[in-house]
C-alpha cells in the first residue's frame, strides 16, 4: 500500500476494495482485450467515480467489481478477503450482504410494490425479521423521499421515482459498497441532484463506499476521486480532493 501515491492523506482509512492486475478479454465476435492490467484501491467511505468514453471498459470493470462477472484474470479483494475464484452462490450471498446496486434503467420488479422491491434483498439476507425489514425499508424510502409511494406498484412510478426506490433497495442491507452504473444517466437535473445528495450523504455520514460509472461530469466532480479510463487502461487515478 505504500507504493500507491493516493494513500498519502488517508492513512487512517482502511482499504475496502483492491483490484490487482485485472485483465479481461471479450471472445466474441473477435478476441479483444477490454481491460488491461487494471490495479487500484478504494478506501472505506470514499465516493469514487469512474469516467471515460464509451467502450473504454469502465462498465466492464464495474461488473467485475460487482462480482457478477467472474471471467477475468487477476484478483479482487474486499476487506482483505479474496473474491476471485469463489462459487456463484457464495458470491450471491456476498453481494446480498455487502453490495448495493443502482442501474441506469432502474430495474425494479414491476409486479411488486415499491416497498416489496426494497424489502426483497433484506428478506433474502434474513438478518432481521420480516417486520424489522419492513421498518427498515420504510426508513430507507423516507431517506429517498418515497415513503408516501411505498405501497404503489413499482410500474406505476415515474422514472425518477423508480430510481430513488432502486437506491433505497440498494441500501436496505447497509452494504459496505454501493455501485452505480450510470445511476443518473436517465434522469433530469432535479432527480440527478437528489441521487447525488443521497450518495454523498451515505458516503460521508455512514462511511459507505460509493463506486459509480458515469458520463455526467458534474456528478463525477462532486465525488471524492475520479478514475479516468481510456482503451482499457486507467490513465488517471485522480486525487482525493475532499476528504472530510
Amino acid at each position: 500500500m505504500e507504493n500507491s501515491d493516493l494513500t498519502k492523506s488517508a492513512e487512517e482509512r482502511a482499504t475496502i476494495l483492491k483490484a490487482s492486475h485485472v485483465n479481461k478479454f471479450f471472445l466474441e465476435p473477435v478476441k479483444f482485450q477490454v481491460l488491461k492490467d487494471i490495479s487500484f484501491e478504494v478506501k472505506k467511505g470514499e465516493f469514487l467515480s469512474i469516467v471515460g468514453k464509451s467502450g473504454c471498459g469502465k462498465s466492464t470493470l464495474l461488473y467485475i467489481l460487482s462480482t457478477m462477472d467472474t471471467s477475468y484474470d487477476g484478483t479482487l479483494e474486499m476487506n482483505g478477503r479474496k473474491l476471485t475464484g469463489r462459487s456463484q452462490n457464495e458470491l450471491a450471498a456476498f453481494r446480498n450482504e455487502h453490495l448495493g446496486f443502482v442501474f441506469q434503467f432502474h430495474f425494479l420488479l414491476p409486479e411488486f410494490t415499491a416497498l416489496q422491491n426494497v424489502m426483497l434483498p433484506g428478506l433474502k439476507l434474513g438478518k432481521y425479521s420480516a417486520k424489522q425489514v419492513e421498518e427498515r425499508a420504510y426508513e430507507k424510502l423516507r431517506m429517498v423521499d418515497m415513503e408516501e409511494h411505498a405501497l404503489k406498484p413499482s410500474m406505476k412510478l415515474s422514472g425518477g421515482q423508480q430510481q430513488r426506490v432502486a437506491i433505497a433497495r440498494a441500501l436496505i442491507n447497509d452494504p459496505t459498497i454501493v455501485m452505480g452504473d450510470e445511476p443518473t444517466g436517465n434522469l433530469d437535473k432535479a432527480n440527478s441532484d437528489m441521487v447525488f445528495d443521497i450518495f454523498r450523504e451515505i458516503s460521508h455520514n455512514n462511511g459507505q463506499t460509493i463506486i459509480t460509472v458515469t458520463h455526467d461530469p458534474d456528478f463525477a466532480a462532486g465525488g471524492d476521486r475520479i478514475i479516468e479510463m481510456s482503451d482499457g487502461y486507467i490513465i488517471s487515478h485522480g486525487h482525493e480532493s475532499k476528504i472530510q
Partner: protein
Amino acid sequence: MKLRISYNIAKTHLLTKKKQTLVAMLGVTFGIAMFIVMISFMQGVNQFLEDSALDASPHVRIYKQLTSDRPSLIETLNPDGFNIIHHQKPKNEPARIKNGLIIARHIEQQPEVLGVSPQVSTQVFFNTGAVPIPGTLAGVDVAREEKLYRLSQRMKSGSIEALRSNANGVILGRLLARKLNLKAGDKVNVTSSTGGTALLRVVGVFSFGIQTVDDARGYVNTAKVQELIQKDANYITDLHIKMKDPLRAIDFGKELARQYDYKVEDWATANQAILAGEQIRGVMTFVISFTLLVVAGFGIYNIMNMNVMNKIKDIAILKATGFDGKDVVAIFMIQSVIIGLLGALLGVLIGFSLSYLLSITPFASGDFLAIDTFPVMFNPLHYALGVIFGVITTLLAGYFPSRKAARIDPVEILRG
C-alpha cells in the same frame, strides 16, 4: 425463510398473470381429468367382466375330458419304436368322475374352499312343438348351487325352493325360456342324446347376465338327470369349486390336478378371452394416459419457458441483489408445483364428475351383458395416481425452464 421469499415472488408472478396461469393449469386439469375418466372406465369394464365371469363360473372345475390325446396302446407297449398313429378316436367311456361325491366331500374340507357342487350335466333337446332346441341340463343339488352362485338372487321368476320340492322341476335360463316361449308353471319335454325323455315343469327362470349361460342352461335335480341318461345315483360329471379367494384358485387347481386324474380347469384358463381383453385395455389406458400427461407437460413447459423469458430482467436483478441460482430455481419450481397441484386437484374434481356422469349414462347392451349403465370404478387410488402424475409432470416440465433461469448471466442482461 428462504423458501418463503421464493414462494412470495412465485405467488406474485402467478397472480399478476392470471390468464396465463389459468391456461397452464387447464392443461394439467384436462390431462388429469381424462386420465381419471379413462382409467375409471377401463377398470370398471375390467372389473365388471371379471366379476360376471367369476360369479357365473366356478373358480375351479373338475371334469373328465373324453377327447384327451391319450397315449395309444401301441405307444405304451413299444415306447421306443417308430409308431405312426393316424386319426385316433377317443375311447368309449362314460364322462363320469369316479367317486365324485367322495372327492367333493374331501375337497370341501379344505379350509380355503368356499363350497363344492357336484353336477351331472348332459346335452339335451328341448322340444317345443315340432322343433328341438339344443341346450344343457345341469343336475345339481340346489342348496350347494345356491352357496356357490347365489342362484336365488338371479331368479327372474319362480324360486329355487320350488325346484327342491318338485322332482320334475326345471329352472331355465332367461333367453332359453324366451326362445321356448315358456313361463313358470308350463311344461316342457326334453330328449337326451342317449334317447331318454322326460316331461319337466318350469318352476323358475334365472339370468346370470351372460349370454352363453342364459341361452342354453337349465337346472334340474341331480336325480332327474341321472334318471334321464339312465345312470346310477353316484354318477357325477362335474365338480364346481368356489374358493374363498378367487386368486388362490390357480394354485389350488394345480394341486388338484396332481391329486386326481381328471381335467382341472381354473377360471383364468376358462376366461382367457376376458383376461386378454383386460390386458389390451390396460395397455391402451396406459398409452393414452401417458400421451395426455405428456401433452399437458409440454404445455406447462412452454408456458414456463415463456415465463422465464419474460422475467429475464427480473431474474438478473434478483441475482444482482444477492439471490442465488437455487432461489431462482425455487421461484419457478414453486410456480410449476402450484400450477400442477391446483390443476391436478381441479382435474380430479372434473374427472370425478365426468366419471359419475358416465356411470349413470344408460347403456343398452342387449342380451349380451346384464348391465344398464356404463361400468365405472371409483377407486381413490386412481385419483391419487392422477394427482401424483400431475405433480410429477409439472415438476419435470418446470425443472428445465427453471434451470435455464438459474443459469442466466445477470451481466449480459443488466448491461443491455
